[in-house]
């Protein structure tokens, strides 16, 4: 069976060979993988002055090598290239490269040359253009233009779309995709009964504040947001307001180009506001070190390279980081491009990072207050102003503070006493005794809010540091030429008379006309598609280069990209377009034939099914148990964690204290992200350490993850809270409780078989606890949620087992 499926794949490949050959889809991947290492863009590694990545020019594949040429279009038999790849004694690629060509590949290359050896520019670096929407026969299927592209593609592949998913699956899919939270039974009902249309549901979910949280989960992976520095002592650093910014930006539907500008260059905007400064914390998200004995120059180089890797991966889907030591092996990025990109960020001076305090101080930072706090400040100051009438509030506050400071000083000198008396006198003139109490009250209120302020790292431009090309990436080598900020040469230029800035870079990245905005739009259209279909149209979400995979449906991706920037970079509009398509609605069931035909779901003849992201698995359990605190934003939360998990941390040593207040039950997106020791639950469910850009998380299915869901106190506590709900809200009879539980957790009723399994579990557990009532009390003591006094402990502990079973089901943690 299995062997057959491979045979089948092989057959599919051969059948492709009979079709029209497209350079980017069929030929470039082979040449890139097997030939470009020595005959590609990297001039240092180039052999025999021959490039196979371009046809023309001195070193191009068609150039005259003295009476012969590597590739003679239309004449494979005259092409040296073909002779060499067929040469049994001295084959190309050489045996020692372990890159030998397969017979099918040789056949394809031969045919390509025979048919004229048509080259085309790398697909990703050709700006997207709007293609006409294809004509299709099955006109009753499409909901919007996306569907016409999908259907057309399926037609050419001899496939049909899957039927629509049942409405329960669909509503669950929408909730998890757009908010990361489960729908309530009432919300399911409203949709299934037809009372609420899909469009209405989508509008509501896009307007929900939880939409921003769900999007932030993805964005924070891309930009490698974490609560700790990452290297060596892995100390906490101040950055959580940046996370609030991201959530807010998605909720407010900040246009993506502005979102880009604020993060890369918030500090360079005209009169940047609070949120723009916070956004500029993007430049500070990289891993940094406090290790004693670090060599500053070395770390300047490390940080510069880190920023280039991230900005190019996030916005360009490019691996410019590969050009740190040499020209890129597969793409036209030169080592100069790498350092010129780094020079955009050379106005950041990463200094003053010493000491091992917690949190550590990493200037520049600013004190951040939420919008609500700022409103309160304004009100308090207004009231203060009204109280003291006419006098300046700020000056008075200053005086008050000085008085307090002097009073606190136990070793006052006579001069101090004199000053104190003067100040008090002048203060009393403004705040007379009748006003004193009110003033003090307002001041206390103000101070309480100030205490809740958070520091956050920001960017503030300094004079640009000199940036040199480091030969072979060696930071000790000063022989390389000095470069100034520039975008990769083959992609154009940023035109400015002065040293180009981060703002220029941000503008260039989002300018479809004069910059690489088309590329950026394509990179993100692909990633949004991945978020709602489980796989990108191009599977390589962060490598659009020669070694990445070309899109399975190029015209569709192009049109999405153009639609994205033409809408004014409207993220919510793009998401709405995707999730209201018919393609999105398809069932994710996958018959074996389709699995064999399209194992990676590249043609989208079905929806995808996969385990929920780590944070959502947590959120789902907390939501179902009603433990969830769904406040928006704030400092990071610390859930229960195994004792001693941080014992390997030092400078300083760390003792983890989980939150004992309701912060314990905050959403996964707010969980403290310790780079070196990510919470074991998040880690087991494939959340990344966020040391580097992650555009796609792996989806594993391991015993470690099973142990988490079975035994992590967070899930035990959630199970007992859920059990309590089942007992209280599900009436008294076991049957109605079970129905309630299934509807709550899975949005459906149990069938007879499920009913039997669950009641069996309930019975054996109950009998066990009857014999050991103390154990029942013990299990109900897991976690800090109050133990309810109004239900029987043995019964509640037994229903806790049922709740655990439900929270562990594959169906519960799967997006279908």
């Amino acid at each position, binding site marked *: 069976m299995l062997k057959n499926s491979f045979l089948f794949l092989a057959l599919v490949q051969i059948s492709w060979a009979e079709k029209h050959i497209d350079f980017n889809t069929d030929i470039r991947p082979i040449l890139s993988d097997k030939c470009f290492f020595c005959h590609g863009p990297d001039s240092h590694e180039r052999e025999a002055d021959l490039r196979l990545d371009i046809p023309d020019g001195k070193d191009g594949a068609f150039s005259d090598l003295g009476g012969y040429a590597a590739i003679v279009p239309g004449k494979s038999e005259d092409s040296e290239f073909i002779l060499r790849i067929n040469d049994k004694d001295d084959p190309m690629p050489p045996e020692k490269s372990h890159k030998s060509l397969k017979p099918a590949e040789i056949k394809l290359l031969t045919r390509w040359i025979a048919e004229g050896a048509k080259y085309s520019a790398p697909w990703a670096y050709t700006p997207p253009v709007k293609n006409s929407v294809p004509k299709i026969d099955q006109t009753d299927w499409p909901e919007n233009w996306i569907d016409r592209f999908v259907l057309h593609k399926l037609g050419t592949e001899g496939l049909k779309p899957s039927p629509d998913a049942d409405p329960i699956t669909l509503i669950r899919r929408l909730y998890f995709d757009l908010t990361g939270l489960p729908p309530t039974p009432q919300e399911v009902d409203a949709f299934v009964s037809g009372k609420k249309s899909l469009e209405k549901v989508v509008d509501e979910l896009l307007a929900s504040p939880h939409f921003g949280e769900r999007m932030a989960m993805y964005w924070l992976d891309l930009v490698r947001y974490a609560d700790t520095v990452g290297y060596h002592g892995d100390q906490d650093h101040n950055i959580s307001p940046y996370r609030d910014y991201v959530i807010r930006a998605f909720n407010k539907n900040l246009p993506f180009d502005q979102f880009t500008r604020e993060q890369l260059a918030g500090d360079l905007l005209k009169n940047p506001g609070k949120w723009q400064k916070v956004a500029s914390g993007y430049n500070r998200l990289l891993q940094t070190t406090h290790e004693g004995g670090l060599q500053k120059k070395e770390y300047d180089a490390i940080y510069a390279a880190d920023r280039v890797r991230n900005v190019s991966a996030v916005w360009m889907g490019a691996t410019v980081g590969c050009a740190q030591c040499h020209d890129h092996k597969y793409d036209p990025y030169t080592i100069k491009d790498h350092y010129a990109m780094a020079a955009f960020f050379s106005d950041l001076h990463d200094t003053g990072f010493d000491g091992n305090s917690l949190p550590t101080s990493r200037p520049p930072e600013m004190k951040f207050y939420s919008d609500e706090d700022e409103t309160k400040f304004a009100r308090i100051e207004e009231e203060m102003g009204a109280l003291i009438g006419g006098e300046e509030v700020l000056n008075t506050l200053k005086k008050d503070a000085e008085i307090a400071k002097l009073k606190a000083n136990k070793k006052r000198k006579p001069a101090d006493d004199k000053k104190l008396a003067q100040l008090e006198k002048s203060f009393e003139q403004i705040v007379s005794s009748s006003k004193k109490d009110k003033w003090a009250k307002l001041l206390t209120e103000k101070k309480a809010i100030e205490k809740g302020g958070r520091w956050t790292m920001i960017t503030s431009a300094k004079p640009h540091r000199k940036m040199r090309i480091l030969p072979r990436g060696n930071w000790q080598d000063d022989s390389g030429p000095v470069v100034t900020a520039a975008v990769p040469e083959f992609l154009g230029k940023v035109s400015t008379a002065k040293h180009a800035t981060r703002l220029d870079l941000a503008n260039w990245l989002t300018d479809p006309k004069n910059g690489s905005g088309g590329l950026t739009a394509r990179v993100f259209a692909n990633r949004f598609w991945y978020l709602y279909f489980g796989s990108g149209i191009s599977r390589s979400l962060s490598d659009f280069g020669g070694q990445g995979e070309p899109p399975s449906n190029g015209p569709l991706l192009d049109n999405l990209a153009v639609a994205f920037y033409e809408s004014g970079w409207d993220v919510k509009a793009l998401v709405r377009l995707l999730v209201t398509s018919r393609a999105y609605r398809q069932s994710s069931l996958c018959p074996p034939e389709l699995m064999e035909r399209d194992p990676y779901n590249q043609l989208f003849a079905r929806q995808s099914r996969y385990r929920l992201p780590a944070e959502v698995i947590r959120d789902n359990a907390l939501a179902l148990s009603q433990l969830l605190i769904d406040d928006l934003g704030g400092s990071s939360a610390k859930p229960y964690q195994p004792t001693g998990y941080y014992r390997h941390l030092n400078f300083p040593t760390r003792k983890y204290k989980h939150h004992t207040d309701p912060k314990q039950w905050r959403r996964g997106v707010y969980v403290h992200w310790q780079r070196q020791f990510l919470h*074991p639950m998040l880690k087991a469910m494939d959340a990344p350490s966020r*040391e580097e850009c992650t555009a796609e998380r792996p989806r594993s299915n391991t015993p470690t993850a099973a142990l988490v869901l079975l035994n992590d106190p967070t899930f035990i506590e959630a199970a007992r809270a859920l059990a309590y709900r089942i007992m209280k809200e599900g009436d008294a009879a076991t049957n109605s409780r079970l129905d309630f539980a299934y509807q709550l957790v899975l949005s459906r009723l149990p069938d007879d078989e499920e009913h039997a399994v669950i009641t069996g579990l309930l019975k054996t557990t109950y009998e066990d606890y009857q014999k050991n009532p103390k154990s029942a009390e013990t299990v109900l003591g897991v976690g800090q949620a109050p133990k309810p006094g109004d239900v029987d402990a043995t019964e509640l502990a037994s229903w806790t087992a049922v709740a655990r079973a439900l929270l562990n089901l594959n169906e519960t943690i799967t997006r279908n």
Partner: protein
Amino acid sequence: MIDQTRRTFLGQTGLSVGSAALASLLSDQANAAPLNSLPHFAAKAKRVIFLCMSGGPSHLETFDYKTQLDKLNGKAMPTSFTEGQPIAQLQGQKLKVQGHLTKFNKYGQSGQVISDFLPHIAKLADDIAIVRSMVTEQINHDPAHTFMNTGTAISGRPSMGSWITYGLGSETQDLPGFVVLTSVGGRNPQPIASRQWSAGFLPSRHQGVEFNSAGDPVHYVSNPKGISSAQQSALVEAIKKLDRKRNKLVVNPEIDTRIAAYEMAFRMQTSVPGLMDISTEPQRVLDLYGAKPGDGSYASNCLLARRLAERGVRFIQLYHRGWDHHGGLEKYMGICCGLTDRPTWALLTDLKERGMLEDTLVIWGGEFGRTPMFQGKGGAGRDHHIKGFSMWMAGGGVKGGTSYGETDELGYNAVKDVVHVRDLHATMLHQLGLQHDRFSYPFQGLDMKLTGVEKAKVIKGILS
């Protein structure tokens, strides 16, 4: 079986599945089986025990004796050595030579030179091959560890243990293929990140699993409080039944894998505590190592390493974290060696007695060495040093009694038969039957290798 294969297929959509990875789809047990084409040739070693002396033990107080160093003791360090060289905590300071802080002797028939700090390892002189010409590229602990474990200082790359279990699979169904144990003692220990046993871009089941000596031996491996084994078993059975029932309807291969994962998780709940309980060992064996059940010492970890090796774990990594001797070197060497010397000897002796040393490759060493120059943070010490240091290997086809490579007259630069970290990796892979330059995984368009892009060589001179 077919379903499991499909699961892997789907489960890896996040990664480029190249031919090597594709081969793993053909394996019977995704968790345990080697890649199809591996090993490349007959292996000398079946498993590795890597004794990681974290912090960077001084080669000049362990294996590298230089008469000239004592002669120049207290004199200015000749600038010909240090000019333009990377330097850590001694940046901007006056550099002077620090003579050996202990004595050396010749041991065994091979006459290998070993310091007085290591009287037990000295007894193994004819069993170990000492490499005195190691070099690395990273001078600070965190990146140097990352470099030693992954071959690069860039985060996110797989560690050697992950590479090896990815290539060769595991020989156990009840335990992970790659296990990490840690112990402390010595100078204020260096922090160590879980990045050091990360699977990087390899499938996450190849990630190292840390076994803890206190609390749960593995996170969440114990039943929750108030839940008996019988209840837990009933629960797991119910989950499996319900998943299986659902799968009849939705036919999702992922569910079969999940059922298998729950079965293994449940097995681990019994097997791991049993494995970690060394009190079942005869007193004679406990005495050999100097291990006390439950003390979390390096000695206990050495004994656990043998137990893990017996049970088929492929890569076992022990960290002892106290070797960063910027000052008080004599005192702290005394502590570190006191804690590790005898257990290391016991481990090799025990393996030998059981006939396991011949197919177990044991590697001892830190992430770098220490300077010939004096540093004085609380008594004489030495700073980080990357241009020359010592490591040793034993078992698994290594020729015992071998001295390989040399540093210069002051123990600064490796000058003869220089061994780079990637050469160490290449040699380790070679002993496991893996050809380093053919052992790759496609990631970000590159064929990634543990040994990286620079040329690496197998250290033939230490192999039998």
